[in-house]
């Protein structure tokens, strides 16, 4: 049974660095599957207009399709072209929570993410997704600079 690693992508260059590090680790491990995960930030407790609610299912499908085609599928292709097994996963929710949940559900060894690209007030107030993940994850987390 191959080892599994979870790589969190954010659609930015920092995510690419995390992916590169994940591929390097996978090569060192040998038999390893990379799970490329993209989380669309979403809260069930946010406020929306009635019109947005009516169109929500449609928007959700569009968001997932866009994340797959622009971020996840190219990343999975890149990993596979290096002869490493890979799957892409797109989910809505809290980044830190979803990465950890996927890791637990798949029985992965560790999570690899890049240092957060968030900044400003939000980061000071709520903490970044990366720091939340490091604080709360139930598996080892590697943070790539």
């Amino acid at each position, binding site marked *: 049974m191959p080892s599994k690693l979870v790589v969190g992508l954010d659609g930015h260059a920092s995510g690419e660095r995390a992916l590169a590090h994940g591929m390097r680790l996978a090569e060192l491990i040998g038999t390893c599957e990379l799970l490329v995960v993209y989380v669309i930030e979403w809260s069930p407790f946010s406020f929306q207009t009635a019109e947005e*609610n009516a169109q*929500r*299912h449609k928007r959700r499908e569009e968001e997932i399709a866009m994340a797959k085609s622009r971020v996840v599928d190219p990343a999975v292709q890149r990993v596979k072209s290096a002869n490493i097994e890979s799957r892409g996963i797109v*989910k809505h929710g809290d980044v830190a929570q979803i990465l950890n949940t996927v890791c637990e559900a798949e029985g992965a060894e560790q999570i690899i993410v890049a240092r957060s690209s968030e900044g400003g007030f939000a980061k000071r107030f709520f903490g970044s997704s990366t720091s939340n993940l490091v604080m709360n994850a139930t598996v080892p987390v590697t943070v790539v600079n």
Partner: protein
Amino acid sequence: MKLFPTLLALSATATAASAQEAMSLDERVNEVFANVTGPFVNLIFAPLPGTAFPWIVLWLVVAASIFTVYFGFVQFRFFGHAIRLVKGDYSDPDDAGEVSHFQALATALSGTVGLGNIAGVAVAVGIGGPGATFWMILAGLLGMASKFTECTLGVKYRNEYPDGTVSGGPMYYIQKGFNELGLPGGKILAVLFSIFCILGALGGGNMFQANQAHAQISGIVGAYPGWITGVIFAVVVFAVIIGGIKSIAHVTEKIVPFMGILYVGAALIILLANFDQIGWAFGQIFAGAFTGLGVAGGLVGALIQGFKRAAFSNEAGVGSAAIAHSAVKTKEPITEGFVSLLEPLIDTVVICTMTALVITISGQLIVDEATGRFVLNEAGTAIATIGDTSGVALTSAAFGTGISWFPYVLAIAVVLFAFSTMISWSYYGLKAWTYLFGEGKTTEIVFKVIFCIFIVIGAAASLGPVIDFSDAAIFSMAVVNIFCLYFLMKLVRKELRSYSSRLSAGEIKVYKN
């Protein structure tokens, strides 16, 4: 449809009125509007023969009571379950990104929590005295069962289109439900409901909001013509619903809940600062509920006002909430019914009661010290108040006695509540409009333009005719909706029994504890 003759009549009468050059534009709009809507208002609020009791109030209360008994006091039995549903305990994590129970509830609440809670309660207490609050609370508690019934049906019979969008509401459940039961007339009743829903959207969901927002702004900056506020509001609403400037709606949707919390917080502060009077205020509420305490119309006046304003505020039985709730992601339509019953509780039992207590405690209502009874105003139509205030101005003055700067915050809150309610009701009206005339860009824009025109009329007309028409329009929706709910409620009971037995057997999956 009925709306076009009304508009034509409005325009014809407006032309005649323009000859009276001595009248201001606001006065002209007001006169024309009162004349055009008068017969409709009189029909809806006609008293029961030999009494002063409007038949429509009895219609709402009897329905809410029947639903309460028919569903075995569902609002109390499933209250805890409703909270767990809103918390997401039963939500499948794989459905993340879809509309949650919380979001459906919050959206529906943003359409109901607003001026009904601020201005409407002041009207109720101003006319019916503190005793109106008792009947308002009772109406709120009973109304939870009405809301449960209509919102369950709203989800069960919604339309789900191939592109993933949904449309729901009474017009859909009336037509489909009647078909399922093999009953005739479903389509006609659905069309009738849609016509009334459009009028309700233009009345309570639009004109009343614009009118009271103007009253609040002019109370702060000084008197100026209402049509100016109307035009400004119309432009902003136009920008959102036609121009697609979602950022304005997003900001409002985020600020409105904050304003709601601020409003309840301020009320709590005032009540805590006067905690020694809370017992007296509740005494007034109970005494006034059964004796009248010298208010206009006595005991019946308090009861009518309490029930009327509660229904206007929480819209239970009106059918509007079923449109808002129908977008939720759930495999069990009844779960949204449970969630929706929290709406009248939050809106009426909690927020309206807070407003009523603050007004009662503030001393704005003038009491004859010798008799302990309220003093009526000169016309004998309402309780005399300090500064002769009514509606939102009375609430503002009452909060001002506790927190001097709060009227400024309230002014902002009123404008935002008014705006958010308009956005919600523009959607409800649009759904009814597209049900009648079909989905399509041009049809939608026609309704949206009419909606914006009515904002200007609402801001320019005076409170009396606007509030009468708003009430009549909203309640006319309830006439059709409740009539149909009596036929459809057995479908809801079937759902309730099935879900209830599966819940007891532990067959309903819990995802979070």
